């Protein structure tokens, strides 16, 4: 622990460097062992641990060996749903006590961050992925969510009547 304190600044620099490496090379995990410090590296091969991840990108980008068993697009009536791309804890704001990213009635753009999901201590920003008006928040702040769980109900801009 003593060694860790002494090296703290350089360790933080290294971590920052690692994060930019992760982003540049599409990595999901990094492991480096130096004295007591240990970090693991893993290349993204369809995994989900990107720092920023489009909400609906995962199901769509998958190979579809049997179409009947693939999940249908999250769509109900004239509304669409933004579904969780991962297992984790749902937060409406990036930090406790901050303003929620979005409120009911907001107009969303495709790249609007709608919430964050914490998975294994990593905060993942979730984007709307399509333009529309936020109709309903389907999950309570701080609630656990599973893969594919609907998070928001949205009235798509294109199909607005």
């Amino acid at each position: 622990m003593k060694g860790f304190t002494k090296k703290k600044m350089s360790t933080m620099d290294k971590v920052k460097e690692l994060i930019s490496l992760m982003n540049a090379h599409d990595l999901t995990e990094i492991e480096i062992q130096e004295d007591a410090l240990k970090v693991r590296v893993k290349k993204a091969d369809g995994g989900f641990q990107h720092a920023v991840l489009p909400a609906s990108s995962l199901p769509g980008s998958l190979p579809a060996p049997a179409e009947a068993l693939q999940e249908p697009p999250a769509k109900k009536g004239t509304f669409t749903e933004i579904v969780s791309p991962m297992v984790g804890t749902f937060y409406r704001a990036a930090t406790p006590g901050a303003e929620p990213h979005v409120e009911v009635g907001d107009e969303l753009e495709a790249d609007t961050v709608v919430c964050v999901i914490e998975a294994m201590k990593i905060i993942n920003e979730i984007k709307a992925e399509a333009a529309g008006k936020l109709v309903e928040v389907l999950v309570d702040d701080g609630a656990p969510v599973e893969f594919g769980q609907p998070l928001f109900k949205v009235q798509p801009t294109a199909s607005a009547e």
Partner: protein
Amino acid sequence: MFSRVLIANRGEIALRVIRACRELGIETVAVCSKADEGAQYLELADNTVCIGPSPAEQSYLNVPSIISAAEITDVEAIHPGYGFLAESSHFAEICESSNITFIGPSAKTMMVMGDKAEAKRVAIKNKIPVLAGSESTITGQQDALEVAHKVGYPVLIKAAAGGGGRGIRIVHNDASLVSSMAIAQREAETAFKDPSVYIEKFIEHSCHVEVQILADQHGNTIHLGERDCSLQRRHQKLLEETPSPSISQHQRTELYKAAIRMAKAVNYTNAGTVEFLVDKDNGKYYFIEMNTRLQVEHPITEMVSGIDLVKEQLRISAGEQLGYKQRQITLDGVAIECRIYAEDPDNGFRPHPGKITVYNVPGGNGVRVDSHVHQGYVVPPYYDSMLGKLIVHQGTRQEAIACLRRALSEYHVEGVKTTIPFHLRLIDHPNYINSDLSTTFVEGLLAGG
């Protein structure tokens, strides 16, 4: 004891673990992929978390997703079942560093036993015979040829990180060695993300006999007898029985001693299996590998020993001592298991996913069926096609075979092809009835009819 456990698996074995937990009063969290969402067996878990899309790489093999599910459901331990992450020391290590108990041996032990070449070195050090072959992984063609000439053909090329019969090739001469090396390495790379292979002598007339080990964290290591798994196709087990009809009492005692020595050498804890090959021509035995997990065929050991291996795994991981000594263990009668796959035996055992329209399981005295399947169940195309396991337990081998024949003929499945007709043929073969088992028997039966 734990109050809540997550089961990082699916199907038959997930249900097996859920049942053991329920009997011990442990709450269960099941995980599932999109393909398994809504499956009936999941209803028996207290909680279910969907962890990803259908392909296993993105769900049942997705370590961050499973750990995340464990964190949001606040479990104390994870049972990995068999297959998927059950032998991943990486996963066990992440569980350990996340303060979640991995129900199995330590990550360190798994790493040693997971490297087949390293495991062989441990065996040699502990005076357990191993097959002649390469001492470490083979890197090049020249290296391979040298080893093959030294031990003599035929030889086996095996993936260092192997399991489940993948990445194994039998070669009889230089030409096939050279061509098979490349294929075996590619197979190993695809299946285990590690192209390392090693070479060892291939014994033509052999039986596959494995010893079940239980070891607690207090230094108690016992065995629960052996299982004969000689009946395989494509190096995958089809039918297992205990006790092995192929070995003598003397050989049996030798194997037990060697298995316990091996487990103690690596400070093994939890349930594990030490696999041996027994040469039918000269009676010699050789250590093959140690499986650091629960085996598919564990129920036959449970039937003859009366010990619930999954409950023992949970107790051991929770830090409890084994409740008995070796001399208190008695192994009664004969148990046989058939693995029932949704495969077409008439078409090269091709997997046959689809909807099950009729599903009637056998019952009666001495019959056990471990299966997550029911009428209306859709066998997904993404995973292993095993529908379930039929296990029989009787006083003698003859009675067990009669019971198995009766039970197999009651097992009625429609909608998908199954291996049931093949099993019926197998157990009626004179060689099977006369206990003349060998690892090449099934392939011979398929080739010769």
